[in-house]
């Protein structure tokens, strides 16, 4: 079964580069390669891609909003944000909006398709700096004063499990997934699966936070 991919990238060079990478892999199907958010939304309205590849600097809208919209419309879709260095704050915002992976802009075509496959197979990439930020986000929530006037539903009061925290700490030290797996005596595949779960938690978490903040502002 092929994986359908929608690419949203405003720079033609990279749009073409990413499209070539997808087209070069027979197990991938290019659903569309567009350069605006509006076009992406139009395609999303008609069909649901398996993987959405988004550059954040779109001319007509913020890529983060597009990711959020995509996550809302097709929860089964894996959104992947394109980043130049992998450590900018936008990656974290994208994950909070629902992205489960990221792709370095200078990745080789083979790496691109590999990344898509891994993502579909249930594993998410993570860099030490993202791991640090994710940890910080959860810790910040944990230490915030527990005075929410709006009671969050139980499933939205998410916390990282001990195992997840351990994984993030090891990644933050710069250990590769394989080494993380060795330290924790689990497979590399399980490690990346954990990372994806962590991303989901962060998204849910930030949704809960948005609800919490809306409650604070009297919007709910």
């Amino acid at each position, binding site marked *: 079964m092929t994986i359908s991919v929608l690419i949203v990238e405003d720079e033609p060079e990279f749009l073409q580069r990413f499209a070539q990478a997808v087209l070069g892999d027979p197990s991938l199907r290019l659903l569309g390669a567009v350069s605006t958010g509006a076009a992406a939304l139009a395609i999303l309205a008609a069909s649901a891609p398996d993987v959405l590849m988004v550059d954040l600097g779109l001319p007509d809208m913020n890529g983060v909003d597009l990711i959020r919209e995509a996550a809302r419309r097709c929860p089964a879709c894996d959104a992947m944000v394109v980043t130049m*260095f992998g*450590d900018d704050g936008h990656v974290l915002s994208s994950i909070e909006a629902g992205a489960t992976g990221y792709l370095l802009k*200078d990745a080789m075509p083979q790496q691109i398709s590999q990344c898509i496959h891994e993502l579909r197979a249930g594993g998410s990439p993570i*860099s*030490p*700096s993202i791991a*640090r*930020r994710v940890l*910080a986000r959860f810790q910040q929530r944990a230490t915030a004063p527990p005075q929410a006037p709006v009671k969050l539903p139980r499933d939205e009061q998410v916390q990282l499990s001990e195992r997840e925290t351990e994984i993030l700490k090891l*990644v*933050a*030290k*710069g*250990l*590769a997934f394989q*080494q993380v797996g060795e330290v924790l005596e689990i497979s590399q595949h399980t490690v990346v699966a954990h990372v994806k779960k962590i991303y989901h938690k962060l998204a849910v978490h930030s949704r809960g936070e948005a609800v919490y903040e809306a409650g604070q502002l009297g919007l709910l």
Partner: protein
Amino acid sequence: MRPDSSACCSSRGIVRALAAGWGPLGWLLAACLLTGCAADESNTALVQAPQRAQVLLSAEAALPDAAAPWQQTGVPDWRPGERAVWYRVTFDVPPVWRESWAVYLPYLYGGGAIVLNGSTIEHIGSLSSGQWVRWERPHLVVFPDALLRAGGNVLLLRAEASPIGNSPRLAPLLIGERSALQRAFAARYFAVTALPQLTAIACAVAAVFMFFIYWRRRSEVLYGLFGLAVAMWGVRTMHFVIEALPAPWWPAWRTLYFASTGGFIVALMLFTMRMAGQVHRRVEAVVLAYWALGPLVYVFTRSQDWLSRVWIGGFVPVGMALGAFAVVAAWRRRSVANIALAVSVVIGVLCGVHDYLLAIGSETMRAWLPQWTAQRLFLLHHGANLLLLVMGAVLAGRFLGALREVELANRTLESRVAARERELATSYRQLADLQRAQAAAEERALLVRDLHDGLGSVLFTSLARAERGDMAGGDVAQMLRECIAEMRLVFEATPPDERDFAGVFGSFRFRWQQLLQAQGIRSEWAIELPPGSIEMAPHNALQVLRVLQEALTNALKHARATSIRVSIARAGDTWCLAVEDDGDGIAAAGDAPREGRGIGNMERRAQRIGGELSVDSGGRGTRVTLRIPTSVTHHAAAAG
């Protein structure tokens, strides 16, 4: 019916009597009375002030008759030495009188009896009745209408001896309608009886209060001395309140009188001197000894006369000196308090001298002021009260002044502290701003230099090569990847949220691990870097990472290594960062000199952060070691 002339004469009599009795105050009163008289002449009562009397030197208690050996005498009459004497005064009463008549006696110190037309109308207790008396009070004895006759009347007065001599036996008495005498009686009664009562009570209260203050604050000697003065004055004044005593108590009472009189003067003197800031121990000791002398002499000799004349007289120069001292002190430091104190001390001393002369029955005084002397009004009651009031006011003023000073000092201190705090806060802020600005400038300068050295040099070299046509497409891509790696390195080394080298190194390791893996090179990472163990300024971290990156790049590009080991370990005061590979050593690669591998560059970077670089390379394998002292890493702002 009384003639008009008599009325005029009578009102003059009152005026004279009052003026004689009250001095300036009396004149004021008299003036009021005169205006009253002018306004209401018809109501003026009859008052007679007999100037002549007869005296009978007889201690007999029986009423003497007209045939007894009476002698002519004047009013007042001095009879020192006699036990008891009789006086005979005649006066005329008009045929019709509107109200009761009475006799007003300013004093009858030894007690006795008053007899009108042969009938005793008043008995006043005397020494002979088993008690010691000293009646300070005036007497107003109303004549029973039945005994009074129109025309001539005879008033007999038995005057007993007083235990304290030197006073007229017969006071300047007044006879007339009761209402006309009432005012003079009331005025004197207030002056010699009510006022001392009030004074005694006020002194007791003030003394307790002052002693309490002194008890709690021993350094406030002035309060203690003031308390002593008030207490002494109160005790002394009690002698004018308690006029009759059982005979056995008299000597002790009298001793107390002398002690308190002297004590008052001594306390006053010490107070005035200390107030002026003068402490003369010797003078004080002499005066205190003199004070103690009086009561002691009295206890042993019972010589009242000696004490009253000589010992109390000895205080007159003391008082004079005190007055002079107070005046000089006030002259030197002219403050309201000092001037008021000086004036009241002088008034007090004058009153004291006056009373002294009055008490010893000074012949001179009698000759100069016969009427005034006969009234026997002791002025020290008023003078001392004034003095004590002024002293109290001065102390209160000092107390308020001290409070004000404390408040002022507190305010000054508070404002100074606040101002200092503001200054400190400002300078801290300025300092912090300055440091921030300096740190930012330094950081910027270092990063710019780094961009220059790193990205800049690669780009310029590549540009030169490309323009020379010496660069194939693959080379350009390789060059650009190097540039991107360079940028990544900068981003890794300068994360906005991290100063811990462990975190910075994590990103570096993560990237290089992937890179090496993609190249099929085995890598081993032996990192002993607990979180928080190295805190480093971003530019220093960048230098370290650059050295490591250079070493790794060399291993990758030039040495053709198959396995790389990266290690970080602490050895004593040094952090040891090493990159080892199993590729061609520098010596083996004949075509690649040291500089070609950027070793000089690495050494310079190591020096910049106070570290040192060593390269061990033989034919096979290379080990690049960077040693940084821990002190450099702890002090983040190492000099570039």
